[in-house]
C-alpha cells in the first residue's frame, strides 16, 4: 500500500497572552489604551520597557507521521494534546508554522456534523448547502440525494426548517451528508460523541465500509471503544508530540495507563494557594485499587484521590477537616468530598508528613476531564492550605452497571438505578 499522507516536522504555534486569559482577538479600545500606557511607561521608565507580552505556545511540534492507503488511524490523547490542531492542519483550516504535509488524493474533513446548517432553511436545502460546504458538487449531491435522506431517516421532515429538528435529527442529517462524500481520505473528529447508540453504530459501520473500499480514515476520539472498533492503527499524542504509535489496543492501553506525571506545575511549586501555611500540600494524584497512579480512570471502578502534605515547622495541628471539591471542565462543582460529613474525623496528633486518601468505591462520573480543589482546615476552621484545581483526572468509559455494556455519554454523572414494570389491576 502506498503512502497517502506524509507529515514531516510539522509544527503549529499560537501566540498567547501572558496574563492568564487567552486573548485571541483584540479590541481596538485595548490596542489604543495599551498603546498609550506603553508609551507613557516607556517615557517614564525606558529601561524597563519590554516589547512583547506574548508567549509562544506550540500546539504541535516536530510531528512526523506516515499514513498508508486504506489505513484506519486513530488519534488519541488527552485534551490539549494537539489532536484537533493536527486535524485542522490536515484539513487546511489553519496553516502550519513549520514543516509540511503531503497528501495524495482528495481529503474530506468532518470536524463537526452539520457544519453550516442554517436553522431557517429546510432539511432539503441544508443537504445541498452542507454538501457544497464539504466540497461536493451539486450534481453529486443530487445523485446521492435519496441515499442521504434514506440513511438519515428524516424523510418526513425534509421540508421543515431544521430549527424545528431535534438535536438527534440534526446530527443524523449532518452525518448522512458527510457519509456520502467520496474522498480518498476521510478525517473525522469526535463527531460520534453525539447521537444515539444505534446511530453511532450505523456511523461506525459506514466508516468501516469506507475503509474497506480502500479509502483512508483518520479518526480522533475520546471514546476508546469507538477507536478500537474502527481503527487498525493508532497514535497517542501528548503535549504536542507523538508519544506512541502502533496497534490500536496497545496504544489505547498505554494511554489508559499513562502515569499521572503530566501536570504543568507541580503542586509543591504552586503559588496560587490560600491559607496560613502551617500545613502545605505538596503532591496530589489519583490511583486505582492497587495503588497505581493514573491519569485516566475508568467509570464505575474504585478510585482513590490522594494528597501528600507536610507540616514544615512541625507545629502541632489540631485535627484536620479535609475537603475535595470535584469540578467538571465546564466548571460545574459536581460534589464535595469531606471527611467531616463521612464521620472519618482526623484528630490530633496529626503526623507531620503524611498522605490523605479519599476512596471512592464506584466512580459515578461520566467520561470527561475533571479537576478537584483541595481545602484543608484545622478543627477551628482556620484554612491551612487551599488550592483550586489542585489535581486533574480523565474518566474513560467503562462497564458502570456491571452488565457487560459499555455505557458513556456526554452527561456528567452516572447513577445506579433499576427498573420495573407493574400492571395496575382493576379493583
Amino acid at each position, binding site marked *: 500500500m502506498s503512502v497517502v499522507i506524509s507529515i514531516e516536522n510539522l509544527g503549529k504555534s499560537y501566540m498567547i497572552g501572558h496574563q492568564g486569559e487567552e486573548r485571541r*482577538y483584540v479590541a481596538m479600545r485595548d490596542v489604543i489604551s495599551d498603546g498609550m500606557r506603553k508609551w507613557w511607561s516607556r517615557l517614564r521608565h525606558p529601561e524597563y520597557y519590554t516589547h512583547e507580552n506574548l508567549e509562544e505556545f506550540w500546539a504541535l511540534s516536530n510531528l512526523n507521521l506516515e499514513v498508508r492507503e486504506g489505513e484506519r488511524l486513530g488519534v488519541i490523547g488527552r485534551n490539549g494534546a494537539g489532536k484537533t490542531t493536527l486535524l485542522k492542519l490536515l484539513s487546511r483550516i489553519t496553516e502550519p508554522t513549520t*514543516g509540511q504535509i503531503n497528501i*495524495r488524493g482528495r481529503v474530506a474533513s468532518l470536524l463537526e456534523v452539520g457544519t453550516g446548517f442554517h436553522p431557517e432553511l429546510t432539511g432539503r436545502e441544508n443537504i445541498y448547502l452542507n454538501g457544497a460546504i464539504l466540497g461536493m458538487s451539486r450534481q453529486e449531491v443530487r445523485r446521492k440525494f435519496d441515499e442521504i435522506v434514506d440513511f438519515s431517516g428524516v424523510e418526513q421532515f425534509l421540508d421543515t426548517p431544521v430549527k424545528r429538528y431535534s438535536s438527534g435529527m440534526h446530527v443524523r442529517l449532518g452525518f448522512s451528508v458527510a457519509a456520502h462524500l467520496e474522498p480518498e481520505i476521510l478525517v473525522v473528529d469526535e463527531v460520534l460523541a453525539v447521537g444515539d447508540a444505534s446511530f453511532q453504530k450505523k456511523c461506525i459501520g459506514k466508516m468501516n465500509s469506507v475503509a474497506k473500499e480502500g479509502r483512508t480514515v483518520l479518526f480522533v476520539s475520546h471514546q476508546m471503544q469507538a477507536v478500537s472498533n474502527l481503527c487498525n492503527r493508532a497514535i497517542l499524542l501528548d503535549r504536542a508530540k507523538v508519544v506512541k504509535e502502533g496497534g490500536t489496543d496497545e496504544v489505547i492501553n498505554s494511554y489508559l495507563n499513562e502515569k499521572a506525571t503530566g501536570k504543568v506545575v507541580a503542586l509543591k511549586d504552586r503559588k496560587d494557594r490560600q491559607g496560613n501555611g502551617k500545613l502545605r500540600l505538596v503532591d496530589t494524584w489519583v490511583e486505582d485499587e492497587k495503588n497505581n497512579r493514573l491519569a485516566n480512570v475508568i467509570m464505575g471502578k474504585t478510585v482513590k484521590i490522594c494528597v501528600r502534605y507536610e507540616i514544615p515547622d512541625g507545629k502541632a495541628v489540631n485535627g484536620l477537616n479535609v475537603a475535595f471539591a470535584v469540578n467538571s471542565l465546564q466548571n460545574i462543582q459536581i460534589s464535595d468530598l469531606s471527611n467531616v460529613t463521612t464521620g472519618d474525623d482526623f484528630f490530633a496528633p496529626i503526623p507531620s508528613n503524611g498522605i490523605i486518601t479519599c476512596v471512592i468505591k464506584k466512580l459515578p462520573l461520566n467520561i470527561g476531564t475533571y479537576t478537584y480543589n483541595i481545602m484543608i482546615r484545622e478543627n477551628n476552621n482556620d484554612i491551612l492550605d487551599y488550592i483550586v484545581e489542585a489535581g486533574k483526572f480523565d474518566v474513560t468509559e467503562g462497564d458502570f452497571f456491571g452488565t457487560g455494556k459499555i455505557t458513556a455519554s456526554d452527561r456528567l454523572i452516572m447513577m445506579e438505578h433499576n427498573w420495573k414494570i407493574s400492571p395496575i389491576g382493576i379493583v
Partner: protein
Amino acid sequence: MAELAKQESWDLVIKPGSATKEYWFDLWRYRELFFILSWRDISVRYKQTIIGVLWAVLRPLLTMLVFTIVFGKIAKLPSERQAPYALMVYAAMLPWQFFATAVQESSNSLVSNASLISKVYFPRLIIPTSSIITSFVDFILSFAILLVLMAYYRFPPTWNMLLLPGFLLMAVLTAMGIGLYVTSLNVKFRDFRYVIPFIIQIGLYISPVGFSSSIIPEQYRLWYSLNPMVGVIDGFRWAILGGQSQLYWPGLLLSVGILLFFLWLGLSTFRKMERTFADMI
C-alpha cells in the same frame, strides 16, 4: 531522482505560506460554494419575512422622500437641470444603498460565519463577496421602483442607461474594496463593528446623495472626487437622468483610480489576514 519523482506525485502539499500559490485556483474550484452561500443568504433573507422585501423597497423610498423635502424643498438646493429632485435623489440612493448594505453585510459576514471558518477549508474571500451579492438583490428591487418612479414623472430613459452596468460595476468594486478592508479589521478588532454604521452614516452626507455634486464649487470638485462614491453616483445620475446631468470626467477618472486603490488595499489586507482568521475567530 527517485526523490523528485516521489515529490511530484503529491496532490496537495501543505506548508507555511503555501496557501498563496493555489489560492486563485481554489477560488475557481469553490465557485459552487460561492453560489450556494449567496443563495443561502438571499433565501434566508427573503424567507424570514415579507418585511425583507418590503424593507428593500421602503428604505430607499423613505430616504428619498426625506432628502427631497429637506434638501429640495426646505434648503431649496438646485436639481440637475430639469430633472425632478426626487428622481435625482433616487438615482443616487440606488448605488449608495447598495454600497452601504454591501459594506455592512460583508463586514459582519466573517464573524457571523465563524463556525464555518473554524471547521472547513475554502478560500475565505468567498464569504464577504457572496454577501455583497446578497445586497445586489435589494438593488434589483430598488431598480424596479426606479422604473416606476420614472414612469410616474414621465421621464423617458435615454441611451445613457446602457452604460449603467459599467457604473454598477464601479459600485460593486468600491463596495468590495472597502468591504474587504473593513471585514479584515472587523475580525482583528472585534469592537470595530460599532464604528462601521457611524462611518456609513457620515458617508451618506459627504457623498452627493441628497444633493447634486454640481453645487460643489468648481475648484473643489476634483478634491471632492477623492471619495470614490462621488464618481459612482455621478455616473448613475448621468445614466439615469440622461441629458439632464453632465459627467465630470476628471472626477470620474480620479474616482476610478481611488476605487482601484481601495480594491487593492482590501484584497491585500484580506489575503494577509486570511491565514490567521481561523486562529482568531
